């Protein structure tokens, strides 16, 4: 059985009489442990879809099923990593990581034990007492990931988590994420507008097209990991993705 089903989901925003179709009859399935990338330019509804899967936003039509059961609102087995990292500036690294556990009423001693382990996992040993503003962009996102992992989620939703990072940090973080994902088996839905990032990370790339937001096509990426972004096979998939995104000029040139 599929772990996640997005079943015929539409989202219409109404603003002063205008109706904006952010999502138009989108359906998608993901198996447990699968790494899915939602790829598309701005306005294609990829973040809206992620928010709906997360339960942070409600669909106008259709529904989300998790493990075969319809899910309304946020789900205890799902956690989200946000683009702007969403760390609490008044909490230390450790307290930030423990927040989701605290929200679930996990006792303090147990929280400490889990956060200590995660601080090591994401490579932040010795930074547990620092505040977010004392960390670099990459380190902040490591904290964001650690916080999302704290509750041992079955599904990890990531909204352009590395979008604000410089190219080098980004590459490092992608590798780290794959390492963590392989260790903590979970379904990952990862939103990005970077084709290379999608090809590097995903088992399947869901290409979305804008106005209205729809799924254009789905690309299976069967390359073994770790993937080499300079290889021929990698670039063949990048080219396919480019064509599917209907980027004008590029498709014709190829």
């Amino acid at each position: 059985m599929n772990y996640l089903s997005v079943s015929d989901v539409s989202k219409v925003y109404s603003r002063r009489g205008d109706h904006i179709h952010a999502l138009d009859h989108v359906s998608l399935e993901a198996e447990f442990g699968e790494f899915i990338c939602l790829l598309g330019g701005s306005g294609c509804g990829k973040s809206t879809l992620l928010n709906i899967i997360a339960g942070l936003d409600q669909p106008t039509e259709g529904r989300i099923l998790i493990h075969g059961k319809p899910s309304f609102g946020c789900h205890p087995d799902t956690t989200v990593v946000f683009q702007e990292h969403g760390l609490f500036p008044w909490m230390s690294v450790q307290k930030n990581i423990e927040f989701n556990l605290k929200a679930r009423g996990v006792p303090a001693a147990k929280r400490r034990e889990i956060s200590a382990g995660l601080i090591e996992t994401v490579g932040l040993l010795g930074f547990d007492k620092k505040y977010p503003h004392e960390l670099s962009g990459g380190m902040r996102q490591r904290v964001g990931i650690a916080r999302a992992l704290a509750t041992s989620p079955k599904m990890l939703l990531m909204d352009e988590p590395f979008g604000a990072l410089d190219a080098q940090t980004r590459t490092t973080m992608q590798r780290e994420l794959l390492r963590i994902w392989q260790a903590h088996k979970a379904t990952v839905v990862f939103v990005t507008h970077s084709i290379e990032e999608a090809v590097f990370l995903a088992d399947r790339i869901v290409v979305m097209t804008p106005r209205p937001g729809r799924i254009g096509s789905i690309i299976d990426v069967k390359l073994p990991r770790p993937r080499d972004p300079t290889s021929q096979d990698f670039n063949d998939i990048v080219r396919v993705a480019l064509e599917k995104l209907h980027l004008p000029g590029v498709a014709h040139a190829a």
Partner: protein
Amino acid sequence: MRSLRQIALGLSPLVVLLVVWQLATYSSTYSNVLLPRPIEVWEVFAKSWPTLLHHTATSLARVLIGLGLAFVTAVPLGLLIGRFRPIEETLDWTIQIFRCLPGIALIPLAILFFGIGDKPAIMLIWFSSFWPLVITTIFGVKNVERTLLKVSQAAMASNMLVFKDVILPSALPSILTGLRLSAGAGWLTLVSAEMIAVKSGLGYMIMYAQVLFKADEVLAGIILIGLVGLAFDQAIRLLRQWLCRWQEGLVLES
């Protein structure tokens, strides 16, 4: 901590004022009875400091009680108004009306309802410091970063935890700015109230000294009011620096 240079700069206008005062006494535009020399006022401090201390302590106690009452009532109300739209819609006009009423204008009513003594004074301080605190608290709550609320929602945090760990710390800098404004407003109202409705405190002392033509005591009272006001403000600033130390490096020092 302030450097010597800052202390010298901060004191310089006061020294100038002192010199101008001294010079003004030489010009003998007013008789010495109306405008005593600085040294005469100093003698009041030196001679009758127990009385001055008693009146200052009385006033200070009233302000602390009134301000404390305002804090424990205004902050929770502001948190609720800022968080829940219907509450705001219900109370907005009322707040806008009441916050425009000067506490001093309510002195006659306070005397009618609470008689003469501590009660009317404390109620007036509470009233004047309540509104600035409510308004800055609402402002603080509304400025909570939206991502952080999403993080809390995704973590399925209870309303209580969101208030305690997210909204309150986020609004705290704004609340403490409100406390500074409130302390100022409360102190102002208190002195006025003591001139009419109470038989002790610095306001009463000044009024009484005026009746007896003791200009030196009037001036001593005025100086004390100013000094206590300054001390109050500095104390709240220190409190803010300590409580909001996570902000260091995030914002310019105010």
